[in-house]
């Protein structure tokens, strides 16, 4: 039996969670102010994931397009995902939520635009 402390990132509270691990499995989580804490601790100690936000090139435009992975991806694949996104070149018009890269790095997760480009209204 071992113990590990992780800081929950589910919200700005930043709860410090004491996680008890038995044979690689999470057996107890202590210190979470809400239900998200326990779920995060289980995920973080078994297969940590992160949502990635970065920039993509837009054809015919110098300014980049902000994008995000639609779901979190495994932490170990963050840089590989960013590289694949940087290789892409998005064709306008693009709206928020449009898929920019499908199934990034074979994760099954799509990369979607978080701003608009070439649709007339700038934000």
């Amino acid at each position, binding site marked *: 039996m071992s113990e590990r402390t992780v800081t*929950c990132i589910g919200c700005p509270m930043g709860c410090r969670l004491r996680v008890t691990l038995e044979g690689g499995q999470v057996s107890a989580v202590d210190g979470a102010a809400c239900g998200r804490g326990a779920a995060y601790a289980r995920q973080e100690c078994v297969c940590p994931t992160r949502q990635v936000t970065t*920039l993509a090139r837009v054809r015919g435009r*110098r*300014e980049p397009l*902000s994008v995000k992975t639609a779901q979190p991806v495994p932490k170990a694949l963050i840089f590989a995902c960013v590289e694949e996104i940087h290789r892409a070149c998005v064709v306008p018009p693009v709206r928020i939520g449009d898929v920019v890269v499908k199934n990034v790095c074979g994760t099954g997760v799509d990369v979607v635009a978080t701003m608009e480009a070439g649709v007339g209204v700038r934000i």
Partner: protein
Amino acid sequence: MTDVDILIIGGGPAGLAAAIAAHEAGCRNVLLLEREPALGGILRQCIHAGFGMHVFKEDLTGPEYAQRFVRRFHELGLSAQCDTMVLSVTPDREVTAVSPAFGLQHFRAKAIVLAMGCRERTRGALQVPGWRPAGIYPAGQAQRFVNLDGWMPGRRVVILGSGDIGLIMARRMTLEGAKVLACVELMPFSSGLTRNVVQCLDDYGIPLLLSHTVTEIHGRERLEAVTVAQVDAQRKPLPGTDQRFECDTLLLSVGLIPENELSRAAGVRVSEVTCGPLVDEALQTSVPGIFACGNVLHVHDLVDHVTIESTEAGRQAAKYAQGQGEAGIPACQMLQIRDGAGVRGLVPQTVCAGRVADVLPLMFRPAAVFKDAAAVVRLDGEEVLRKRFRILTPGEMVRLVVPKEVLERHAGAGELTVGVEV
């Protein structure tokens, strides 16, 4: 001279929420002026996620959060004039602005909402010895270069200060190919949100050097290196702890200052603690009919809080413009709001208990890190509300709500204090 009911200065999250709320409260002659070419304010360059957890129960990026308000703004038929710089505001609510499209313009408003946001502290405020080479930027300026303009300011980066923008930029610069050598913080704790320390530094193995500071800047034309030293409890550098970091970029995340030049010139009284206007429960400043919300009032860490606050400011400005401001409600005794032990920068600073609708929100920053502490509200010294916190840190603003009944039960009280008790 153009007459408007409500004039809103600034088209960021505060101005947008205020405009929408004013419209929804029945005001049809609302005009928003924005200095930048587009609406959205600082959110446009905050491409990371973490916005909207309170307001939308969703985790959105900055541009997505902004877009929801911009869309609503346009749906309601509200009008904004971008590329427009406000030059002056007078106490009788006359506003002068200038823009390439319309030249010099004069407006007269029944109510004004100040929503100009804040700006970054720069190197000049820090007095770090050394030359003045290129490569030293406020972190938010660098964020704009990278995220909006598509320029990388450098390749080897040191970050001074652990405010949220600095932490976010540590990750952004790393993901875009730079090497971030360290984040250096003068205080013994980070001034940023915990989740940002975890997600932006720990995830990428970037050391957070607490109780350290930059003591020298090297390089004449371009930054070449910085010297970093540990500091003692009085924040004085300790001899023999120097480390040299070879770098071409130094990002400063050393605090934000509400931008109140216009407010001061309009005669609005400004707090020395928050650096924002002194306001009452309606978020009205010392000048009748001028309201303030968002980062111009006090620097927030969560845009959700800005939205909630600014919605109230917009609603109150609408009431005032419609002539319902003070009328009809008997003048009541003003409660003075004072910072107690461990509390800094309470907003609002005065409250007329009789005008509180149903709850009175109070916001403040803890003055230090407190564990297992309680925020205690007292009216004339008598405890009326107590809320326990596992942790209180200066990096995370606290929002307490005092129910109207509590204020009614202690009608006649003259002073409300909030203090931290361990």
